[in-house]
């Protein structure tokens, strides 16, 4: 009866029917211990990155009967957090169990992967009858470089009200895990570079870590208050911090690697603002105020990495020239130049990466 099913659930049921999934019994497919051990080793980064967020999610669910689950990109359970008694008594799927839709019907893990986004299945929306007592939610986790799905975070609870309470926290936790994966990759990639060029890069790295710490603590806070009041504002602010963290991480990579990218359209005013924000802590440590003059968005076509490095050097040079208490104002002078004002002195700086070759 498609008219009774919400759109994503209808699509999931159709997929289950095409795959020949039985609504009465789940096909229990579980990896043997050797294969499971190999999988857990392979996915160690994801599991470690997700651990604190799964605990935060479990805390937010409070005393409700629940399980927070982490799955890999194929829907195989990698980790499970909740009250041990509940998990054993309810028979939640253990690590190594595969919960793809073809085997387990529409469910928080398999359907989230198949849809490529957040899903919620309330009671009888699950394809298999055995799951009808639960409300399950799932959200995919993306790789640091973008769209590729590397896993899925899911929460199963008995009571719908509990599920509603933690919905935003679940989505924010997935953002947090993605930020954690980005951090790990940055640490690994840049270890060598930091050995060689410790100064400016180390400051930037600390700045990015600071933002990540703030996002993680915000989410932790939201999880703790979830059981007694509405945590939505805190959770939203954690998601915003995680997004800013990712933007900064990308900028940091652009600055750290002396390689080139293909020209692409970007907003020069926005990029200038992002770099000023990135260097805000450095400026305040030096007792200098760094501001960007208001300007309409200015679309240019440029190698974003080369342009970021050039702008970064302009700003750091200005920071070096400024004295404690100075205000540095940066503005666009033309589509290929910026204006730097320190106190009463103004200078124009041409940007090579924006000049016609």
């Amino acid at each position, binding site marked *: 009866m498609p008219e009774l099913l919400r759109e994503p659930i209808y699509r999931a049921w159709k997929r289950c029917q095409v795959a020949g999934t039985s609504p009465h019994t789940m096909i229990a497919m579980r990896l043997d211990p050797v294969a499971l051990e190999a999988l857990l080793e392979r996915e160690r980064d994801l599991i470690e990155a997700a651990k604190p967020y799964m605990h935060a999610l479990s805390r937010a669910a409070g005393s409700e009967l629940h399980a927070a689950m982490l799955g890999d990109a194929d829907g195989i359970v990698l980790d499970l957090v909740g009250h041990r008694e509940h998990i054993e008594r309810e028979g939640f799927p253990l690590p190594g169990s595969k919960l793809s839709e073809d085997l387990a019907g529409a469910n928080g893990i398999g359907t989230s992967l198949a849809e490529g986004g957040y899903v919620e299945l309330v009671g009888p929306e699950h394809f298999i009858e055995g799951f009808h007592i639960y409300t399950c939610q799932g959200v995919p986790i993306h790789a640091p470089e973008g769209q590729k799905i590397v896993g899925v975070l899911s929460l199963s609870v008995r009571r719908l009200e509990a599920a509603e309470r933690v919905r935003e926290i679940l989505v924010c936790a997935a953002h947090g895990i993605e930020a*954690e994966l980005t951090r790990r990759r940055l640490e690994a990639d840049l270890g060598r570079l930091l050995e060689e060029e410790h100064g400016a890069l180390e400051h930037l790295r600390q700045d990015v870590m600071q933002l990540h*710490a703030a996002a993680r*603590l*915000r989410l932790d806070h939201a999880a703790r208050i979830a059981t007694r009041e509405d945590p939505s504002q805190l959770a939203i602010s954690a998601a915003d911090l995680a997004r800013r963290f990712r933007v900064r991480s990308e900028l940091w990579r652009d600055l750290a690697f002396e390689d080139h990218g293909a020209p692409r359209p970007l907003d020069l005013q926005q990029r200038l603002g992002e770099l000023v924000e990135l260097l805000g802590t450095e400026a305040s440590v030096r007792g200098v105020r760094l501001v960007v003059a208001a300007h309409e968005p200015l679309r240019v076509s440029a190698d974003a990495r080369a342009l970021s490095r050039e702008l970064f050097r302009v700003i750091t040079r200005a920071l070096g020239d400024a004295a404690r208490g100075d205000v540095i104002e940066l503005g666009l002078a033309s589509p290929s130049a910026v204006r730097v004002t320190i106190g009463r002195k103004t200078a124009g700086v041409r940007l090579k990466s924006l000049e016609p070759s």
Partner: protein
Amino acid sequence: MTNENPTVLVVDDDPDIRAALVDLVSEFGFRTVGAFDGVDALARIDEVHPDVVVLDNRMPRMTGTECVRELRSRGNDVPIVLMTAAREVEELARSIGVRWFIGKPFGVEQLVEAIRRALSSPAR
């Protein structure tokens, strides 16, 4: 611990971190107070006499390390838990004689564990 509800002073210039820590640490039974940099921390320490100070390192006006040196030069031996995103956390802490430290990002449980250890140890 000597007090029923020990006072923890949280010093961080990042308002998100400071606000989250003040709330989170209080959930573990501590009385918490915030300060926004080293200079503010020195004033708050004189006012509230905290049992432990949770101190960020990289802050404007006065860094965490400068704050610790100033405190010790005044003869104040309040236990410090240093928070930092620096890679050489341990070396940094040791260089200013701080025994308890934590690298960012961290979970609140890790921080509370460090606070408890700092409070229960006779050597500060």
